[in-house]
């Protein structure tokens, strides 16, 4: 029995980890900027493309293959440093205080642009670069083979949960973010440059999405359409957890991860439906998500 359950569990957790990276960035950006960034999934796939490109470069030049782990992290930082400030300053800032319809239209426009940009640069063929996964190898317990890379994914997701919680609760930046989330005007009155917090929070969200994409490429490859798929999944997770909730996003990612993997093992045809069925059930019982409240301002 355990031979069937442990791989199932590991698959669920690894799948949850990848969804979590995308969802937690979305939810963080929403709680600080109060903008639902529809283009968030594109930043996940851009992170993937950049990571795959850098890893391919490393292998083609026959550099030390272990550099590809650094490449995954570097890609996420790179994408965040370029796209975070650029998108926030040029587009998102104009939507502050506007209606949700305007915010969604503008970020949807951005999504279309970013998707085409990726097709222009990386083409429409799928990328597959699994050096980091092969390097970590496998382990066999009780006759079942596990990918060590999956454990890395789960560990990274846990690190992000803990890291974000430490950042919010125990750093100066975290205090300022909490103040801006709770009361933007009061935050300004006590001397917080809210524009700076918006750029930082948005870039952090981009970093988390790009990190998710970068970590996902070695396991699943990357192809056009990944951005849209990720966005919809991340939205389902954010809705289940309650928008603006870090731990909520983690628990919701687990629920969606388990739902997906169970569906794949038991009724493969329901794979795509399972996350939304889970979302439907949760929202019917708790309309603001598992950890959400009407005001949706805690983070």
């Amino acid at each position, binding site marked *: 029995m355990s031979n069937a359950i442990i791989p199932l569990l590991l698959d669920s957790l690894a799948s949850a980890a990848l969804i979590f990276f995308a969802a937690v960035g979305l939810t963080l950006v929403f709680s600080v900027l109060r903008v639902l960034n529809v283009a968030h999934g594109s930043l996940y796939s851009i992170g993937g493309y950049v990571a795959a490109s850098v890893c391919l470069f490393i292998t083609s030049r026959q550099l030390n293959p272990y550099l590809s782990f650094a490449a995954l992290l570097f890609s996420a930082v790179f994408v965040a440093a370029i796209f975070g400030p650029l998108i926030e300053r040029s587009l998102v800032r104009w939507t502050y205080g506007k209606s949700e319809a305007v915010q969604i239209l503008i970020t949807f426009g951005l999504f279309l642009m970013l998707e085409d940009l990726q097709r222009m640069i990386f083409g429409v063929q799928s990328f597959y670069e699994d050096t980091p996964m092969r390097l970590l190898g496998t382990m066999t317990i009780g006759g079942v083979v596990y990918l060590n890379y999956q454990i890395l994914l789960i560990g990274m997701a846990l690190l992000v949960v803990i890291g974000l919680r430490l950042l919010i609760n125990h750093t*100066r930046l975290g*205090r300022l973010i*909490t*103040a801006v989330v709770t009361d933007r*005007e*009061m*935050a*300004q009155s*006590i*001397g917080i440059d809210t524009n700076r917090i918006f750029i930082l929070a948005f870039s952090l969200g981009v970093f988390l999405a790009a990190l998710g994409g970068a970590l996902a490429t070695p396991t699943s490859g990357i192809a056009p359409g990944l951005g849209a798929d990720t966005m919809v999944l991340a939205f389902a997770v954010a809705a289940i957890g309650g928008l603006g909730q870090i731990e909520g996003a983690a628990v919701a990612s687990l629920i969606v991860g388990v739902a997906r993997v169970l569906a794949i093992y038991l009724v493969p045809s329901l794979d795509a439906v399972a996350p939304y069925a889970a979302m439907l059930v949760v929202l019917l019982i708790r309309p603001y998500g598992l950890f959400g409240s009407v005001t949706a301002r805690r983070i």
Partner: protein
Amino acid sequence: MLSLDKVSVSIEGVRVLREVSCVIVARKTTVLIGRNGAGKTTTLRAIMGLIAHSGGAIRLDADDLGKMPAHTRARAGIGYAPEDRRLIPELSVEENIRLPALALKLDRAEIARGLDEVYGLLPELHVMRSRPAGGVSGGQGKMVALGRALTVARKVLLLDEPFQGLAPALALDYARTLGELRKHRPELALLITESSPALLDRIADRTLQIERGEILLPSTKDDKAHVHEV
């Protein structure tokens, strides 16, 4: 010295302030009296840059505040305690008071000095410093908001209806604290809004009347001194 020169503010097409001019001078307590909706809060919000003014100028000494983003007020030395307190409920009382110092990146010694001063003036805050701000009463919350504003108010302190909703005993405490503050920080320019003048009679150096967005007569106890300073 904080000065408003023909400041007008419109909210959704309605003129809320009409060419308001007044001078809030250092070492004086100015009280702005007006009914609900007369424009008291809007005046303070305009000074804080939380609402745009359509005409005129707001100056702190030589600086045109209208050209500076809202968050620069704190660094310029203006402290603001809004009527509805607006604390961060999940942070402790002390963390709320420290927040402006954190935002302005003051060093440890300065933060400690600021806290000491606030606790010296408002000892009850020291008693409840580790309680979450969401758990204190409305009146205590006003004290916390005052303490928080004090940490940045080097030049000007703006208090929006501080006595609104205070129990009589707390109101007395609060008035006594303001008297102490006057002695402790003689250089401070204090602007307090209220709807009833009685509460502030003893601490007011000057009283301004605001009605339907216009300041009526600048009746002051020491008009001559005021004119001289202008």
